[in-house]
């Protein structure tokens, strides 16, 4: 169990937003990718109010190479916020070295932690693709890109398996948009860091 010699790997991820944004589906896609494609242990728990749409909701995903007993986030390694209310409610759960990811049009002011702040206009990108409801999938591409919490191949197959039949290709396109946005952001930050290093030395 916990005292076995192989190093323990564990990531706690909290995805939050409003009912109707596909928050739970996003958790489902991530949990499935980790479990089925990446052969890790994963759990998905969800919390939501009595109303189906518009209320605050969250999906909690734990990914580990060991058995997961307690399936809730205690100190989040990654928090993904797709609404201001979600940010306000859950920001305090982010670990000191945690990563904060936001939809920059939905969360107005956000303070990151040691792992950095990664903004993306996921909803706007989805609107430009013609389907606002794919913002969650755009966001998953971005999360995969900047955190590497699940494998790219695993996520692609999990997206295909989880979305309604006939919408796979548009959802994969949305995922790739988010993924590419993340890669471009990382590259820009690396360049900036290198330039700063060059200027300092």
């Amino acid at each position, binding site marked *: *169990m916990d005292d076995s010699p192989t190093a323990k790997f564990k990531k706690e991820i909290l995805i939050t937003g409003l009912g109707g944004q596909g928050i739970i589906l996003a958790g489902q896609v991530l949990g*499935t990718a980790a479990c*089925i494609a990446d052969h890790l*242990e994963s759990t*998905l728990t*969800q919390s*939501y109010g009595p109303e189906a749409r518009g209320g605050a909701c969250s999906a909690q995903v734990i990914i580990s190479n060991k058995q997961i007993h307690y399936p809730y986030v205690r100190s989040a390694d990654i928090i993904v916020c797709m609404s201001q209310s979600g940010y306000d409610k859950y920001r305090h759960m982010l670990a000191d070295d945690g990563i904060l990811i936001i939809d920059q049009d939905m969360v107005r002011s956000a303070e990151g932690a040691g792992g950095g702040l990664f903004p993306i206009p996921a909803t706007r990108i989805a609107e430009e693709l013609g389907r606002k409801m794919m913002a969650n999938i755009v966001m998953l591409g971005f999360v995969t890109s900047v955190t590497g919490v699940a494998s790219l191949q695993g996520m692609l197959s999990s997206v295909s398996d989880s979305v309604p039949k006939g919408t796979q290709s548009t959802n994969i396109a949305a995922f790739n948009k988010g993924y590419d946005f993340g890669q471009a952001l990382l590259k820009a930050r690396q360049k900036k860091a290198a330039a700063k290093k060059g200027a300092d030395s």
Partner: protein
Amino acid sequence: MKPAVLTGEHFLTGDSACAEGALAAGCRFFAGYPITPATEIAEHMSKRLPEVGGVFIQMEDEMAAMAAVLGASCAGAKGMTATSGPGFSLMMENLGLGIAMETPCVVVNVQRAGPSTGLPTLGAQGDMMQARWGSHGHYEIIALAPASPQEIFFQTITAFNLSETYRLPVLIMADEVVGHLSERVLIPDPSKIRLESRPRPKGRKDRFRPFHPGANGVAPMANAGEGYMVHFTGLTHDERGYPVMTAEAHTEMVSRITGKIRANLDKIIQVEEYRLEDADVALISYGISSRSSYSAVDEARARGIKAGLLRLITVWPFPEEKIRELAGRVKCLITVELNLGQIHLEVQRCAAGMAPALLVGHAGGTVITPARILEEICGASRQ
């Protein structure tokens, strides 16, 4: 027709895994009424049962749902229903009918916080005593408590096997968290799944006595409509199934329906022991609360406190012998459950003063954290 057993690796909610377990057990009839957080079981069955030649009926309410399941079982089908607290209350009368008629079936309660409408979307384990004594009169019941989607899959099969073997309704006392939690579920090949069916009658159909017990105390069961003389009633009845209004007949009938369970406790009761061998502090828990308990045991051990966990897989009949044995060798027992002390009372009764029996519990609506349990373990270990 699609396969009834979806052999392979899946990422499923507890509710979906329960439905798949039922199908793998040969369940081909479901009657129910939707209620959070059990709705997804009905939803899943409504999609899957027609694919495998089964019948799904959404009934007008839970009383009718329970009655329909008993009817299907009397006709020879394996039947199930699923509900939560308010619906479970409504099912109690016909649950008693199922016990009196010795009718195999499975009733799933995905517990939410009560009393009354309570907290529909939030979990609790407050119906554990209702599971034991919710219907009137004196009887025995079997109730299982799953802690994961994988376990609810197998427990649903076990529940059908027990219900068929001992001819009674078997309860699966899940909770909202386990019902809505998604996790890996490995579904084995059908050849690896052991299924039991009710004892069946032999001999002359006109001389059949439907409540005449066989060797293990359980009477063979004929299907209604296949020619055997059958008579079912909730009234006290003799071996022919005919009403007899005497104390003697009542003693005989109640002794039979309780005796068939009491005589087979060793075959029915299952528990899991975790790090208990040298434990000073023993946690007793089940369902979602047991998962927090595992973490608390590991965290206590990391601090040098000898803690262990007895996880109840079968809650009813209560593992009395096991608790007595444990109470005789540990310094303290702590029951961890999402209510204000139900199984705790049973633990106290069985411990009978041999070891102090404490409780970590609250009224429901959120899970018990490992930190809260650890605090209690640390306190107990200092005594």
